[in-house]
């Protein structure tokens, strides 16, 4: 097996800027692998799932890391921002607690010190923890190439398992978060075996905007990990909740809708049926938790 395996051979090219990385991608395109933190790519290379002839190292591109506030009240996060930097950023923790929460649940300190937000997205794995939180927040990414740049919502980034819509010559540079409305809050809940370090068996993120006057959900976004071949948004469940009160039967109805939309698989980690059970209970807990964060002072029946 892969126990003693070394990495396949490649030529290493270090880059110092976004433009330089785009130039290299334009030349090498399909033969190139972009190396961010390496905690996914190096594993896949060791297993010979991929063997790029050129590895473009992004660790030296300082303009790709960091979190900054945008004029419209949103946030721009560089793709090479590490998971540790993300979860400890005051800008993220203050208004985007759901993202900090999802980040803090990834791996352990050793992985969080090197793994990046861009890598977590570009890997396009259904078990990744950041896509559900980012989808629930309505985040978008910027894809840049020598011929220009385009902005893609995270929920449209994953066309099929293991793939993003990025072309081989495009570099994911930034993640943009919109400003959050008042009376809103989000949460990300996941089930995994070791309660740390392990792959997510099922993850549910909910972001709620609460209507204080009418005591109903003004808006809800729900997104799922490990519930389909790609990270997905649960629109039917959102529609169930919109304009309704936060009551047991309503949450039950939303949980049933999530199970209708989701298409989890059976693997050694969990059966499809068990994942449905997890989805049912995590959805209810995530929506309720998000609602409590959106309007913690309100005391209707919970």
């Amino acid at each position, binding site marked *: 097996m892969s126990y003693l395996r070394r990495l396949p051979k490649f030529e*290493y090219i270090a880059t110092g800027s976004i433009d330089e990385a785009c130039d290299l991608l334009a030349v090498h395109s399909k033969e190139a692998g972009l*190396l961010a933190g390496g*905690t996914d790519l190096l594993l896949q290379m060791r297993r010979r799932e991929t063997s790029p002839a050129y590895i473009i190292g992004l660790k030296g591109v300082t303009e790709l890391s960091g979190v900054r506030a945008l004029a419209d009240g949103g946030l721009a996060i560089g793709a090479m921002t590490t998971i540790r930097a993300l979860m400890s950023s005051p800008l993220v923790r203050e208004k985007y607690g759901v993202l900090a929460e999802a980040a803090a649940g990834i791996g352990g300190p050793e992985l969080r010190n090197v793994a990046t937000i861009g890598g977590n997205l570009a890997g396009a794995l259904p078990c990744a923890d950041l896509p559900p939180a980012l989808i629930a927040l309505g985040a978008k990414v910027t894809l840049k190439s020598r011929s220009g740049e385009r902005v893609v919502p995270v929920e449209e980034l994953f066309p099929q398992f293991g793939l993003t819509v990025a072309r081989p010559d495009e570099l994911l540079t930034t993640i943009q978060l919109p400003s959050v409305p008042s009376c809103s809050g989000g949460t990300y809940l996941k089930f995994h075996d070791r309660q740390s370090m392990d792959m997510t068996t099922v993850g549910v993120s909910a972001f709620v905007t609460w209507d204080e006057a009418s005591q109903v959900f003004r808006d809800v976004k729900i997104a799922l990990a490990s519930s389909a071949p790609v990270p997905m948004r649960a629109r039917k469940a959102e529609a169930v909740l919109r304009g309704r009160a936060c009551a047991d039967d309503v949450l039950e109805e939303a949980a049933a809708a999530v199970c209708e939309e989701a298409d989890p698989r059976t693997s050694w980690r969990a059966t499809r049926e068990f994942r449905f059970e997890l989805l049912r209970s995590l959805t209810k807990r995530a929506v309720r938790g998000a609602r409590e964060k959106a309007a913690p002072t309100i005391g209707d029946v919970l």
Partner: protein
Amino acid sequence: MKHLLPMTLRINGETHDLLVPPWRTLLEVLREHLGLTGAKRSCQEGQCGTCTVLIDGKVVNSCLYLAVEAQGKDIQTIEGLAKGGVLDQIQKSFVQKGGVQCGFCTPGFVLATKSLLNDNPNPSEDEIREAMVGHLCRCTGYVQIIEAIQDAASQLKPESGN
């Protein structure tokens, strides 16, 4: 394809000029080129923590880090901890509290402790456990390791004013 890259690594304060293929991990270079075998090769996928080293003071799995990308950084391995033949306090605490049995996981735990106590000199038991999630020990059952870390924290605590 260039098979050997000249690279300069600063390890435990010492500079090493090396010729290494770009596909070598930091762990492979430490163990096979420099004979620094304190960091261990085990799971090779970031689960077990036996290959842990400090890069610029932060814990990192050296099996998932290319040697070429560790240039210009300050790398610390377990070999650099004892000074002049005298064990570091963290090492002493691990020995005294029975936190070392077969020893395979110990370098990783000790370096993770060093990084933890640098960031947080007075960690709670939960914070200690959270900081150690990336490390597996198959001998001790972890209890003695937690005690060793608590002991090291209290020994290292700066003298409070009289």
